[in-house]
């Protein structure tokens, strides 16, 4: 009886699963410098087994990287008085600023809908609490718009089949981070699945930070806006004065 209970616990709880995932990143800190033009992060890892591989469906790996979530107001244009104007808006409580998902196979083969809802893995399930839609508005139109707009900006991406899995043990993938990245702690989640069910999960963070000049300007603008404004004016006036001075000298020669 006890043995049966232990076996049940082991099977039900991924933490006690026979297969565990360990993973690493090529970099844990992404620095946004003045000439930042996007970067790539290599995510790699291995499957740790205490026993031979179970006799279940093929092993699959899902890698999802999510940027910090923030509320978004989605506005829709409609024709009014002959011109196109923002008319309706819906408030989305949380949508990640960046989301990339990569898998070893087409999504439906890798994960069941039940586990997708439980772990919030597909892009559609990452966007939460689309609410406060006025009557007659289809809230899903607005959440779909978030996904579409961000996908067009390169912020959301899906790369099914892009994770390489070697001998059911080693895996790796490359996640591209675009140039229009925002700051924050990015969460990288790695899932192992068999028979479309999650077997184990590994979470780690990637810090995305503005550094150097970018950091300094951003902090100054938000923490000391008056000083920042005056400094902007001083730079402008100096540039204006020096341009006219330089060209006066050139004209004299």
């Amino acid at each position: 009886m006890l043995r049966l209970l232990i076996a049940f616990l082991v099977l039900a709880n991924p933490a006690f699963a026979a297969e565990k995932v360990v993973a690493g990143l090529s970099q844990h800190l992404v620095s946004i410098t003045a000439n930042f033009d996007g970067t790539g992060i290599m995510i790699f890892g291995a499957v740790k087994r205490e026993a031979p591989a179970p006799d279940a469906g093929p092993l699959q790996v899902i890698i999802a990287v999510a940027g910090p979530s923030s509320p978004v107001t989605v506005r829709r244009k409609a024709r009014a008085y002959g011109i196109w104007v923002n008319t309706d808006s819906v408030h989305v409580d949380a949508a990640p600023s960046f989301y990339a998902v990569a898998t070893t196979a087409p999504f439906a083969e890798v994960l069941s809908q039940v586990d997708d809802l439980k772990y919030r893995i597909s892009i559609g399930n990452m966007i939460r609490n689309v609410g406060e839609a006025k009557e007659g508005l289809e809230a899903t139109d607005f959440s779909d718009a978030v996904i579409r707009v961000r996908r067009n900006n390169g912020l959301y991406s899906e790369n099914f089949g892009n994770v390489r899995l070697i001998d059911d043990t080693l895996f790796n993938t490359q996640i591209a981070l675009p140039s229009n990245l925002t700051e924050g702690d990015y969460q990288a989640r790695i899932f192992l699945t068999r028979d479309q069910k999650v077997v184990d999960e590994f979470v780690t963070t990637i810090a995305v930070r503005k550094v150097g000049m970018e950091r300094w300007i951003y902090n100054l603008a938000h923490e000391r806006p008056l000083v920042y404004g005056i400094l902007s004016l001083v730079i402008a006036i100096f540039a204006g004065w020096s341009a006219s001075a330089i060209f006066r000298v050139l004209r004299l020669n």
Partner: protein
Amino acid sequence: MQIYLPIAEVSVNAFLLLGLGGLVGILSGMFGVGGGFLMTPLLFFIGIPPAVAVATEANQIVASSFSGVLAHVKRKTVDFKMGLVLLVGGLAGAAVGVQVFKILKAMGQVELLVTLCYVVFLGIIGSLMFAESLRSIRRAGKPGARPAPRRQHNWVHGLPFKMKFRTSGLYISVIPPVLVGVLVGVLAAIMGVGGGFIMVPAMIYLLGMPTKVVIGTSLFQIIFVTGFTTLMHATTNYTVDMALAVLLLIGGVIGAQIGTRIGVKMKAEQLRILLAILVLVVCGKLALDLLLQPGELYSLGAGGH
């Protein structure tokens, strides 16, 4: 070379910004205009968020008008007293404009307001300028014809609170210049322009100021109004991007000096008709954006209730 703009939070090509600054600078030097009305829409087109474009452009105009006004101070073609009266109105207008901007930003209508202002003002100014320069070109063709004499006395001269403006040789009420200042201040805050294209015609036709002091005086007023607008945007909306401003103004101040030299070699009528066409093209592009169905009906804004 890509550069990541810290406030706009987008990555753009630095040479594109230098080039745009230079191009608009050349045009502003040629035509004696600030160039803000061209630069701000161009920044929209390359993907800078409108709020950042408007605030940063105000900062850039400080540089170009400061560069321009120095020459006028030397030639004594700045009416400081008139400039100060215009400035009083201008600061009040800019303060109102920044608040309007803030409210509309929260409502998600800032883009619409800015675009509408551009279409209306560029449309009016462009057509007036086009008609005027066509007339003067035709007049130049007919020998013996003279330009129509400017009306020296109009309703402006009947208003109270008169003041003497020695440099301009005027004795008029302060109400019209203050009102002109307010209008220009509001536009500076909302459109990210200096407002010279409104102020210069108003000073000539409405206030009856002599043409030689008009440019210098308007530049003098613009420095302070756009300077104030920059400060207001920096403290209320946090939308002034220093890196963007520096790149634009390096290109802009160099371009302006080159443009001034090209401008000297061209005839005034030709210059004006070219500028009118340019203004109408920008206006047309913005109007089409409003009239045609956009490819993406949805847009995202920062949340918050």
